Structures are given as structure tokens and as C-alpha cells.
């Protein structure tokens, strides 16, 4: 559960991919590599969505490279409707730190990523969005995110993890109601 009121359920974890579902039953397949954008998104009733795969570059290299090294890669987004687009990302590992998350001291990796488009004529980079986030390897989750686009800034924090045996409707609805009321 996240501070912005989102709630997601882990449906499966296999072959390095995590399948998450939110309360609107939209499914998101995410990589174990936190700098990779969502690999697949599918809306429940409409079936609309997209898949994303690496075009050029190697985002996994960020694990071996020293902190501060820029890792550039492109992601090919293919909408289920057939449209395709290319997204450029630049990411770097900012370092490690110890911080209390959900009451436990954990090691967090900080990352900064920027998405941009390249102008065809001038080859200049045009900013689209930036994400600065912290990832907990032991939880396998991004625990804090700050996102900026050309129009707005937003952010969220991980606020709760509910194990499956405790995820009753009563418990979940109470927590979600509280989070959404505080928005």
C-alpha cells in the first residue's frame, strides 16, 4: 500500500518478472531491475494496454557499474492496439543508505532516471519526466518515489505490506479508506 492511496497485490513472481494487480484489476508486469519501466500493462475490462521491451542499451549493467555512472537505454512501447513508440531513458545509481522502512532498518539503493525525446533536426534532448526513487533489495520494492513531468510533480511512499493470510477485506478497506481520505 502506498501513501497516494494505491494498493497492489502480488499475483506471481517467476522468471525475474513480478505480476502486480491494483484494485482496478489493472495488471502490471515489472522487472526485478527497478530502473526498468513497467514491462506490460493490461486494463481489466477493456483489455487495453501495452508492452515495453529494451531496444538499445543494457539497463541491467547498472548493477555492476560504479555509482554515478550513467546508463542509457531505449524502451520500445508497443500498444496492444498496434501503435509503437520509442522512449529514451538515462539512469544512474546515486548510492546506498540505511533507513528505517516499515519499522525495520533496511539498505536502500537510490536511483535517478530521466526520460527524454531527441529532436530530429537539432539532436537536442527534450525532457519528458524524471524519477528519483529508493529501492529496497530485501523487500524487492521501490519504497519511495519522486516523479516530475513537464506539468506536475508527484510522489509516494510505501506505507504498508499486508501478508496474504492477513489481507482480509475488512483490514484492506480500512487502510485504503484512511489513506485515500488523507490525500
Amino acid at each position, binding site marked *: 500500500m502506498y501513501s497516494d492511496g494505491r494498493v497492489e497485490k502480488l499475483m506471481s513472481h517467476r522468471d525475474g518478472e513480478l505480476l502486480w494487480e491494483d484494485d482496478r484489476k489493472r495488471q502490471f508486469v515489472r522487472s526485478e531491475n527497478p530502473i526498468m519501466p513497467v514491462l506490460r500493462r493490461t486494463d481489466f475490462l477493456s483489455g487495453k494496454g501495452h508492452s515495453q521491451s529494451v531496444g538499445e542499451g543494457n539497463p541491467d549493467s547498472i548493477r555492476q557499474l560504479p555509482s554515478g555512472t550513467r546508463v542509457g537505454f531505449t524502451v520500445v512501447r508497443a500498444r496492444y492496439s498496434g501503435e509503437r513508440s520509442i522512449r529514451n531513458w538515462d539512469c544512474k545509481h546515486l548510492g546506498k543508505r540505511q533507513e528505517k522502512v516499515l519499522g525495520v532498518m533496511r539498505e536502500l539503493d537510490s536511483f535517478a532516471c530521466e526520460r527524454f525525446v531527441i529532436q530530429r533536426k537539432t539532436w537536442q534532448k527534450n525532457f519528458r519526466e524524471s524519477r528519483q526513487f529508493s529501492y529496497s533489495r530485501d523487500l524487492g520494492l521501490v519504497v519511495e518515489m519522486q516523479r516530475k513531468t513537464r506539468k506536475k510533480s508527484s510522489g509516494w511512499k510505501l506505507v504498508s505490506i499486508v501478508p496474504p493470510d492477513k489481507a482480509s*477485506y475488512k483490514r484492506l478497506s480500512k487502510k485504503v479508506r484512511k489513506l485515500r481520505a488523507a490525500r
Partner: protein
Amino acid sequence: MISRVTRIMRIVILAAIAALVLVGCQTTASRDEQRVLTVDEVRRLFVGNTVESHNLNTSFTSFTYYHPNGQAIQERLWVRRLGTWSIQDDGKICLAFGKRKAKCRHLVIDSGKYFKILPDDKGKITKIVRYRYFAEGNALAKR
């Protein structure tokens, strides 16, 4: 004589422009106007369909399958419950879950979006649910 004809033509043209503007405004107003759905419209939207609804007070999203036999299957926060549903002659949709009494409410369309409404004692209408998506069949059976 010529200037008088020109003046009359000017008046005719201005009147035509004003009429066009007024017609334009009227069309926009009627398109955006909120109106209560008829019983046939409600039937077309709900019978045998799975509907995504968003409660505007609690921000909860629900998915409900409206079985043609009057059974309702609803999922919210990954929990399912069974209930009953019906449509009244005046177009109100009724839903009941568990032992609770059925609640019957009118639906409206406003700027192309569908809502469930709740009138207060003075007749003031509050939108309480927004219907986001209508899909044919029981989508909940597939998952």
C-alpha cells in the same frame, strides 16, 4: 438607395450570424445536459454485462456482473460477494448484498459519463457512483 440596400444586407448577415451562434450554444447545452436514463437505456448498459464502478465518496472501485437472472456478482479489493439486482419501471437500478435491503437509485448521463445519483430531501442530486466501463459478459468468470 445603394447604401440602404447595404445596410439591410448587413442587418441580415448579422442576424444570420447571431442565429448560428444561438443554435450552436443550444446544441452544446443539450449535449452536455444531465438527464436521467430510461429503463431501456439502463437495461442495455447492465443486463449480462460486467461494469466497473467508482464510488465517489470512498474512492473504491468495484466490478459487478449483472446476470440476466437477477444475480449480481461483485468484486472489490479482490473479495467477491453475491447479491441480487433488478431494474424498476422508472429506470431505477436496485442492488442488494447479503441481508441488506435493496437500494434503488436513478442513473444519469452527464457529458457522456454515467453516474448513480442520490437525491436529498429537497431534491438536490448528488452523484455517488461513476460507471467507468461496461463490458459484455461475465469478465469476473475469466479471472
